[in-house]
């Protein structure tokens, strides 16, 4: 049986009109026609209203993929990248986000220039990002009570700002090199607010690069350089480990790394990597 594109389009239009409330019935014959000739269309309907919604990606992950190039997101979210290959809805969202991001880029550049011109940096106080003097680190007056979000898109007041983009993107994400270049680390820090427990936590993800010279590494997260963290995790090349921690007291986090060259019986080296929790100073790449 031939698939008549016009007939399919007509049947689709009827279904869409029904969902929008323009008509009150889709003739059974049209539905049967779509079931036979265009079942994917019927399955894709609903925008998350019914089955399939739980599989779709959250806005912050979509935003990560919307960045250009999306390599980092693909590296950090591998299973989600697989989902993207199959989900037209998520690809559609990403395309829309890309357009908004490119429209917003000049505003970000202006903002960065303003920071430079005013010798200001953005620092984290509690869970808020505030403007501070680049040298003294003193917060700049009233801005302490009016936090500026970093990695987000609402640094200037605009009721039309996209909420999806106003979400704190992973504010600190980038590469660090440990063990003299033998252990490249991809680090991502995401502050989260846990509603049910009414507290804040940071999720710190550390991934050992696939091109690492060490075969194995022990990773430990420290809130002070000489204070051991609560746990150590072993990772091999390309693997990621996540830590959930209280918001740090200091303006740095430290990652203690112990790496093996040639397996657990091979040579062992240690390193301590400092992560400054400041933007504009190399923490965010």
């Amino acid at each position, binding site marked *: 049986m031939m698939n008549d594109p016009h007939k399919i389009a007509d049947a689709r239009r009827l279904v869409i009109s029904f969902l929008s409330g323009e008509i009150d019935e889709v003739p*059974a014959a049209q539905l049967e026609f779509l079931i036979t000739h265009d079942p994917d269309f019927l399955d*894709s*309907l609903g925008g998350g209203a019914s089955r399939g919604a*739980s599989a779709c990606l959250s806005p912050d992950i979509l935003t990560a993929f919307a960045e250009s190039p999306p390599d980092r997101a693909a590296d950090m979210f591998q299973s989600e990248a697989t989902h993207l290959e199959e989900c037209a809805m998520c690809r559609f*969202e990403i395309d829309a986000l890309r357009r*908004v991001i490119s429209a917003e880029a000049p505003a970000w550049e202006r903002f960065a220039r303003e920071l430079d011109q005013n010798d200001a940096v953005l620092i984290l106080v509690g869970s808020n990002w505030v403007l501070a003097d680049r040298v003294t680190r003193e917060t700049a007056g009233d801005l302490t009570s009016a936090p500026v979000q970093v990695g987000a898109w609402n640094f200037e007041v605009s009721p039309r700002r996209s909420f999806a983009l106003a979400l704190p993107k992973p504010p600190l994400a980038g590469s660090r090199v440990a063990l003299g270049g033998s252990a490249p680390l991809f680090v991502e820090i995401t502050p989260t607010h846990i509603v049910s427990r009414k507290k804040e936590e940071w999720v710190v993800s550390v991934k050992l690069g696939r091109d690492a010279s060490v075969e194995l590494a022990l990773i430990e997260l420290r809130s002070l350089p000489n204070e051991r963290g609560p746990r150590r995790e072993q990772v091999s090349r390309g693997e990621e480990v996540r830590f959930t921690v209280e918001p740090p007291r200091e303006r740095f986090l430290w990652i203690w790394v112990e790496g093996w060259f040639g397996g657990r019986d091979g040579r062992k080296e240690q390193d301590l990597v400092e992560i400054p929790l400041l933007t504009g100073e190399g923490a965010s790449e």
Partner: protein
Amino acid sequence: MGSAGEGVVLPLELRIEDTSARAAEQAERLRAVRERYRLVEDTFRPAGRPVVRGLWSALNDERPSDVALARRLEQTLRREVSPAYLPLLRHRLRQRLGVLFFVLDEVPKGRPDLDGDASLLEWVEERWGWEKESKGTLRGLASLARASADERTLGWALLSRILVNGRKPPGHSDYDVALTLVRLSARSDDAEVKRRLDLWSLWASEDAHLAVLRRLSQLTGAYRTFLPACWYLSCLRGMRVERILGRLRPLESEQNEIKYIVAKLEARR
């Protein structure tokens, strides 16, 4: 030859029956999707609803770019529609549809559902991020979904919202839409539909009933969040306050507000 011919006919018959059954199943699913959308649409401000409707059609259709969609909506609505505004609306639309998905699809399958919508809000935050000002809207939507969980339609939930929000008269387009949802889901001999519509009309027309609703709808916080669902469960479905609390599962600190609402409604029942 004869037996070979019979072998061909039988599978064909089976396939036709199967397609009809699947068409009926799809029709039911589409009806539910439409109802969910319509209830969600009602949670947007009236001025934004035509744009949300355009987004809804676009989500189900060829998914044009936001720029193209904004242009199309501008032509249809004859007003300015900024493409930068659309991601926010689409995000909220999907977030709210997600609330219904959680309560109506996930909870029956056994997903944990702590009191005070804690699990729901955590799920929403995990997937969609947190937006403080949406909390009341999301919880209000969830309460209506909980009130409707064992019903055939969300039409009554929509009618409850319309009544409480003061958009009453039969003939008003919102009322007609809700009524259509109810009728599409009703069986032809459903006397319960008539009983409920009569009750609704009574509350929408009698001054004393209207005064109760007006006073309650002026309250804020949990009162505002739960009022439509309380009216639905107390007045339309005749539930007592203990069952309503069990159904809506508020925080302990919110129970008094619900008891107050229900007591006021019961006094007029």
